[in-house]
């Protein structure tokens, strides 16, 4: 197997976090909650810097499902950012979104895919799409940076106009492989 440069994104030619930020803005998202992931670093910074968005750090990912429901009750749109390992934390609370038909837009950066150097990331990473589907969440995937804007936009439409729980999983190919080497 060909070894990629550690710590470097494999598809960094396009500023896909900025494209996702534009997609969220164009769909009127006002509350963006997150448990940080290195793959979401730039998008989190863009949301914090955006005066029209409330950036809400969470202690655990399922908090963001409640936040999104409350936002919708109050007439606002929310998005929830996490790493794939956080999907397992969300499972029971997904009932809030699916039972009440709340819009839920989750943007999930993938770990445990090709090139992962931390074996502890692999079980939840590999189980992420199936876990989401079994929880009643539609799953879209972004494999190429050039697809990010359109795919997140399509997911937002389905979530907010279709009153549906939707996840966009963002390939580890876009994010790069965590190298576990200094400097970080």
């Amino acid at each position: 197997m060909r070894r990629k440069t550690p710590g470097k994104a494999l598809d960094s030619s396009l500023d896909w976090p900025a494209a996702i930020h534009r997609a969220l803005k164009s769909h009127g998202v006002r509350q963006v909650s997150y448990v940080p992931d290195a793959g979401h670093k730039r998008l989190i910074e863009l949301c914090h810097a955006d005066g029209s968005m409330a950036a809400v750090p969470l202690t655990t990912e399922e908090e963001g499902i409640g936040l999104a429901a409350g936002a919708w009750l109050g007439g606002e749109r929310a998005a929830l950012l996490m790493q794939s390992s956080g999907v397992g934390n969300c499972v029971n609370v997904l009932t809030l979104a699916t039972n009440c038909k709340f819009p839920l837009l989750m943007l999930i950066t993938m770990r445990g895919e090709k090139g992962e150097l931390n074996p502890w990331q692999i079980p939840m990473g590999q189980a992420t799409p199936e876990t989401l589907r079994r929880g009643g969440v539609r799953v879209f995937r972004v494999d190429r940076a050039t697809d990010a804007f359109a795919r997140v936009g399509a997911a937002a439409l389905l979530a907010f106009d279709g009153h549906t729980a939707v996840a966009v999983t963002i390939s580890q190919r876009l994010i790069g492989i965590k190298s576990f080497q200094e400097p970080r």
Partner: protein
Amino acid sequence: MSAALHRRDVVKALLQDRGDILVVAGLGSSAWDCTAAGDHPLTFPLWGAMGSACMIGLGLALAQPRRRVLVVTGDGEMLMGLGSLASIGVQRPDNLAIVVLDNERYGETGMQKTHTAYGTDLAAIAAACGFAKAEIIRSVSQIAGVRAGIHRAEGPRFYQVKVASDPDPLVLPPRDGAYLKHRFRDALLGRSPATDSVTDSVTD
């Protein structure tokens, strides 16, 4: 030491003449208590998603900064979402209040003791998370102050109300989550769910 507070009386006192306050009720007895005080379209009662009540309150408070938002929940539900107190402490919405009806028991599952029965001080946790006000309430003479706090004072505020553990009759809210959501949004936003098209809310 005064007689133990009764949860139904507390909730009734807090929600009487409720004005335009928005209410989220945590699953189990707290939702039944809010329903017993009067089912209302601007009360969103939970039947599941344990641990989520305070975060729903936060999302609502951020979306509706001019409205008062009250979360009424139980000690077990609050314990499952303790991290949400830290997340609220970061945002510090001044229109949010949380009332925990603390009977020190898991009332729906056989009255097992919760952590508060062993001394966990939820109000101290909320205070440490940066709430503007956090206190334990034990007597009926304090309820008027709680009412003033949730309806008028600067938040976020947290009241851990110690209540008796005697069971109350079930008074159940509607069970259909989509119905509960739609009636809440209709009452608050004044528009039909059918008009939720992207064109009326896209800002860009």
